[in-house]
């Protein structure tokens, strides 16, 4: 080294600071790797243990009770989950979208902020408590007109799932409506179009994709919920049943009951049902997310 040249190599205190920095950075990377590793292990466990029990019969047959017939399939649970989620979506989608329209198009800022706050509080309620709420509302007591009450039903279970979905649909729709450029609304008003026509013909079509994906995410969440169904739609028959006033089986509850059972064959069925559920949930939420990202970019470019 030439005399008088300054070394850029850190020494002493500076060295220690760099070392501390290196350790901190590594632990941040490690934390992220750990979280992804857990996801991978969960998916791998479910996949490797569940795939063996999956065949056509698994999807089209009901649970079999004969001694040598194995555990049969999960057709009633598939149909039940479909029915429950359909009921929930029928309630939560219009309610959520209308709420979001009110907040983004009509409400004063303060009112909008309050509504958002309470929806977030609702989102934070334990799902089991929402199940109890619906239990006291529509299972313990009689509901006039709907033909439900005094017993569990798919309507009650679907309503509980709707309460879970409502804040999710409303919040995601609000986010998308906020992305609709104000220039579009102004252009519509400048042409003499009234407010309701603007909302229906301009704002909603522009944000349709976003609302759809937000709803899909909420459906994925509702399809996997078990706790709200325990008190509202748990004790059910063993056959495919499309009557919403009856209690029906569902995939999450099948997994729960099978996992608690002592019969190893039922454990196998639980893993297979879990594989079906996890595939449905992950594939739908992943697709919805990618689409959402795309429509967000598209709206962003127009701005």
């Amino acid at each position, binding site marked *: 080294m030439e005399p008088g040249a300054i070394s850029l190599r850190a020494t002493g205190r500076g060295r220690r600071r760099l070392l501390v920095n290196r350790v901190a950075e590594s632990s941040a990377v490690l934390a992220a790797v750990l979280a992804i590793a857990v996801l991978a292990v969960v998916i791998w466990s479910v996949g490797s243990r569940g795939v063996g029990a999956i065949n056509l019969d698994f999807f089209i047959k009901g649970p079999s009770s004969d001694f040598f017939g194995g555990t049969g399939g999960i057709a009633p649970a598939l149909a039940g989950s479909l029915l429950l989620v359909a009921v929930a979506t029928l309630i939560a989608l219009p309610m959520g979208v209308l709420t979001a329209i009110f907040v983004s198009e009509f409400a004063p800022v303060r009112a909008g902020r309050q509504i958002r706050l309470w929806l977030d509080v609702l989102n934070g309620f334990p799902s089991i408590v929402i199940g109890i709420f619906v239990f006291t509302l529509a299972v313990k007591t009689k509901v006039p007109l709907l033909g439900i009450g005094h017993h569990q039903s798919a309507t009650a279970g679907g309503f509980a799932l709707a309460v879970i979905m409502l804040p999710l649909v409303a919040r995601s729709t609000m986010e998308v409506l906020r992305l609709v450029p104000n220039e579009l609304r102004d252009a519509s008003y400048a042409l003499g179009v*009234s407010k309701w026509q603007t909302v229906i013909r301009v704002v909603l079509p522009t944000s349709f994709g976003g609302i759809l994906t937000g709803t899909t995410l909420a459906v994925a969440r509702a399809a996997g919920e078990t706790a709200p169904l325990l008190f509202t739609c748990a004790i059910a028959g063993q056959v495919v049943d499309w009557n919403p006033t009856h209690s029906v089986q569902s995939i999450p509850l099948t997994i729960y009951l099978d996992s608690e059972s002592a019969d190893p064959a039922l454990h196998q069925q639980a893993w297979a049902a879990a594989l079906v559920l996890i595939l449905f949930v992950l594939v739908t939420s992943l697709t919805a997310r990618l689409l959402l990202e795309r429509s967000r970019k598209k709206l962003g470019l127009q701005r």
Partner: protein
Amino acid sequence: MLARVEAASIPAGPLPRTRRLGDRIGDGLLYGLTALAAILGVLVVFAIIWRVADGAWPAIKFFKLGFVYHNVWNVNLNGGSFGARDLIIGTVVTSFGAMLLSGPISIAIGLFLSELAPPAVRAPVGTLIDMLAAVPSVVIGLWGIYVLAPFNADHIAPAIHAVLGWIPIFGGDPHTESTVFTAIIVLTIMTIPITSSICRELFIGVPSELEEGSIGLGATRWEMVKTVVVPSVRGGVVAAIILGLGRALGEAIAVTQVIGNFIPMGRSLFAPGDTMASRLANQYQGASTDRQIAALIYLGLVLLVITFITNYAAQRVVKRFEFQRTGGA
């Protein structure tokens, strides 16, 4: 060339109403409909509180506040006697345990995603961690029973026991499968995606001028995080952790699957226990007497009150940061 408008050609008085009747009705209708939906949505929150309190009323009258400090869960022909002390303790222990583990990990993930990771890595890693939140709790619970619990009992718990076994909470038999410890790990896994994604948003919101200023003054990245990024959103980070805690307090299914549903709680984490939400999930079919049903709803009410307070407080703080960032939009 612009045509000059003669002042006289503008009609005096207000402009004629050109809005069609249909538009006036349509505007009113849409306003009314959307306002109704919004009000109903908010009312659901209060309806839940009211109905659960109402359903719990017989038990509240019968057990009064003794319900929260007695420890008994006995069903008999007289109706049974119920007290939730150990269930409340179990809920607090599992949730705080999960918070202690998931807090630092979530902050680290938030920092990784906002400050450290190259842009090309951020989006996919963020999505994967969000996917962890999408895994249904019943699936996490199933995995908890048959994969995590045996692994804990064979490897992790004995290792901790060997080093820290002299502390009562790590005492007992580390080879037990259904344990409070496993429940804590399951809850940690379930809260990490929630807390880390809020942390990421908070850290991204820190003005880059501040960060660049700190780097420019010669700070390392860690020193910048420690002295600029985290302090400027400290309240938000606390709120994010509390929101994760709220999730952990209310989680029923996954916990009931792994915790062993047993009271009285032992002193050790390597022993079975129970939580409020887990007891509710566990007893849904067994509820035989009216008093037991009322007691279960009372339990739900206690849980609701606790989660309501934690969530409301945390939401207010998070909202403040959102407000700062978006300027109140």
